């Protein structure tokens, strides 16, 4: 099993998925992220999937779960860089990624987190 590295930038955690995820790595990432959010006091999480070629229902569910967990820990999650083919496939699959914020790229993801927090005061 490969572990996905988590980077910290200010109060944002950035995960860039560069490997072909197996289900075990997905679950590990879920746990690692929750731990990191608590230990660093991060307010935002960005998951960059620019390099991800497919998102199936298991990986899709991970996004929703991570978003829900981090929200409970007072951090917002944004998934960025989804490829068009992946998005079209997810729609066909019937997965809507409920509760997950998305942005076109890393830069817009960061801007979105700042905007969300600015709005919250």
């Amino acid at each position: 099993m490969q572990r996905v590295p988590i980077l910290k930038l200010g109060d944002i955690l950035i995960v860039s998925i560069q490997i072909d995820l197996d289900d075990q790595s997905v679950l590990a990432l879920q746990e690692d992220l929750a731990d990191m959010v608590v230990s660093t006091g991060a307010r935002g999480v960005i998951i960059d999937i620019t390099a991800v070629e497919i998102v199936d229902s298991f990986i899709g569910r991970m996004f929703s779960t991570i978003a829900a967990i981090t929200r409970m820990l007072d951090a917002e999650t944004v998934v960025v860089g989804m490829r068009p083919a992946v998005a079209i496939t997810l729609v066909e699959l019937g997965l809507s990624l409920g509760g997950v914020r998305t942005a076109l790229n890393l830069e817009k993801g960061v801007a979105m987190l700042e905007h969300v927090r600015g709005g919250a005061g």
Partner: protein
Amino acid sequence: MSAPRELPIATNGDVVVVRQQTRTLAAEIGLSLVDQTKIVTAASELARNALVHAGGGRVVIEVLEGGRRPGLRLVFTDEGPGIPDIEQALTEGWSTAGGLGLGLSGSRRLVDEFDLVSAPGEGTSVTVTKWGR
């Protein structure tokens, strides 16, 4: 014409290998990027199904040539408990493993042809085909 490839599905890592092999062959026969992604996603769902519901199985990936368009056919088989109610298993949101219930119904929408054969105690066989445009 390449011979059909048979791959085992026994671990999480095998599911990843099935995805990669499907992707390689789909690209080789010239499927569009979207169609490649669809068949690879379907392969991932069905391989996981075999792993989760039957404790493993195997897949045969075959390139279909000679017709007007090339195609890719994947046959997933397992010796698991089988599906008692196929109709129900194909219903969206129906899940026995605590998933989203999109595995079967979702993969059916991602491919051009979908065939499911199963009986209780006799395992399950799912055949999916994607044709080039």
